[in-house]
């Protein structure tokens, strides 16, 4: 059996998630043993090129990116969205809260009119094309990345947690942030990171996106019990919670 061909593409992002793959260290050799990693530029230059798995990092922010992702989709069998930028639009989605022209001028100043700086609303990859699997997080958890890839190679459906961060947080025996009357998004955000933030005495700020069926209503209502307001909660949602699915 020939090794599956894997191609990695980046869109609007910080490339931090690719770095996590590099950080697999010795495991990267195990990975290369079982898949054929195709350099992305080559893959794109040769029109007939096809690959089995396309890994997409970053969010879609420009009209030409939409075209590019559609071409990639047409050439791959399996598409994986890698990291918060790709799975939920990530930090980039904050832009959608403002007037786009204003955003452009704020970032690029007098160069804002240049054609290559044309910008649109930030979209997660699945908002443009079909995505088969999502590897969540900002950045991704490399252990999770490795187990998703292994599952796919075995022809199995990778299991991604659909329960809240609290599950992993409790397993680590952290003291809940709410015991100190602090907001934590853990109860509505998807686990899989090992409750990275609460384990360092910091609230979860939602980088893995909502669980499948978040109880946002409850998140709003419980604020009162802790002497907090829904506005406090909204502020905590801004970083990763802009315009994705149900919202507080």
């Amino acid at each position, binding site marked *: 059996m020939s090794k599956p061909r894997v191609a990695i593409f980046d869109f609007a992002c910080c490339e931090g998630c690719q770095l996590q793959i590099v950080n697999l260290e010795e*495991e990267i050799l*195990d*990975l290369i*043993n*079982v898949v054929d990693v195709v350099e992305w530029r080559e893959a794109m230059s040769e029109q007939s090129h096809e690959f089995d798995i396309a890994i997409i990092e970053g969010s879609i922010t420009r009209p030409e990116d939409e075209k590019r992702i559609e071409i990639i989709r047409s050439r791959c069998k399996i598409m994986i969205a890698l990291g918060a930028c790709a799975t939920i639009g990530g930090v980039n989605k904050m832009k959608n809260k403002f007037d786009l022209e204003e955003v452009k001028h704020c970032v690029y100043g007098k160069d804002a009119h240049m054609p290559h700086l044309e910008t649109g609303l930030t979209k997660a990859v699945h908002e443009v094309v079909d995505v088969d699997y999502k590897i969540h997080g900002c950045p991704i958890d490399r252990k999770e990345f*490795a*187990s998703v890839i*292994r*599952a796919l*190679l*075995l022809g199995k459906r990778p*299991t991604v947690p*659909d*329960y*809240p961060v*609290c*599950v992993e947080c*409790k*397993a680590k*025996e*952290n*003291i*809940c942030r*709410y*015991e100190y009357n602090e907001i934590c998004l*853990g*109860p*509505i955000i998807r686990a899989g990171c090992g409750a990275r933030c609460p384990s360092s005495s910091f609230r979860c700020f939602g980088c893995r996106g909502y*669980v*499948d*069926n978040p*109880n946002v*209503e*409850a*998140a709003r*209502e*419980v604020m009162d*019990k802790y002497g907090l307001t829904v506005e406090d909660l909204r502020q905590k949602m801004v970083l990763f919670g802009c315009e994705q699915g149900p919202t507080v």
Partner: protein
Amino acid sequence: MSVSKLSKEQFGQFVDAMLAAGRRVVGVVAKDDRFQFDELKSAAALRLDYDVTILPPKKYVLPQVEPLLQFEVGGGAQSVMNYDPLVLLGVHPYDLIAIRQMDELFSQGEYDRHYMDRRKQITIIACDVVRPSKNIFASSMETAVVSDGYDILITDIGDAYLLDVATEKGHALMTYAKGLAAAASADVEKRQAIQEANRTALNKHKLGCKVSYLPRLMEKAYNHPVWQEKARLCFSCGSCNQVCPTCYCFDVQDQVNWDLKTGERVRCWDGCLLENFATVAGNHNFRKDRSSRFRHRLFRKAKYVPEKIGGQIACVGCGRCITACVADIANPVTVYNRLMEERTLG
């Protein structure tokens, strides 16, 4: 049964002697301003004056993630079963009762060798509560004191610990104790007074009926509005399951190595409040509503498990779920009392 005595200093030396001899001892230590069971490095870190631990000692009896077997894809498998001796030090009576319930559940029906083999290697040094936690209601559940089930029971009587050594395993540990004296009758009376006080004092939430009445109370409670009302705010986060000393549900998962040929089967904690706990083949979830999952937990504590273990209620009143529930809906007493008051509504 004879009760013996060690000064606090001698007790510390006893613990350090076990550690020096290479015994693995897990005890209660501080975690910021809370407490947890953890590997003990020296007696100095031990905090037997704790109120409650964040997680119960079940994490050493039924670990969060436990390897069951090594396998080859499409080939054979080999059980993982080598458990080393462990001393579990500082288990409060309610937690001890919870462990004893699990012992019964895992040994009946399909005998669970992984659980039981591990359990047999554990020596439990229980200790009476000196400081009630903010949500404890062990007195209501009749779990505030124990008279059996431990290997050793210790009681803090101020300047010393009284030790009640109950089993062979307990006696074996006493070889590490120096200066052991028989307790004077005045000491034993002090111990009795502490236990008598705990019998009623560990009661921050008061159950409105006898514990033994709970299974009958549940008989008519299935359709009561309280399930919907409470579960409206439920995050399905499972914290109430995880922190509960009597919740023992687990999920079994296979983890495959990079060679794609070998792997390990592990079991890890699961919880009946989680959205997909009851999802079976074909993606059918037979407890899809938050309220049916919320109800299941309290039925399990007060009816389903008692039916399997001679009527013992599977809530020992540790109060951990009350503290852990961000939505503040998990308190079993609030629900049971409500059902008591409105017995006709079910």
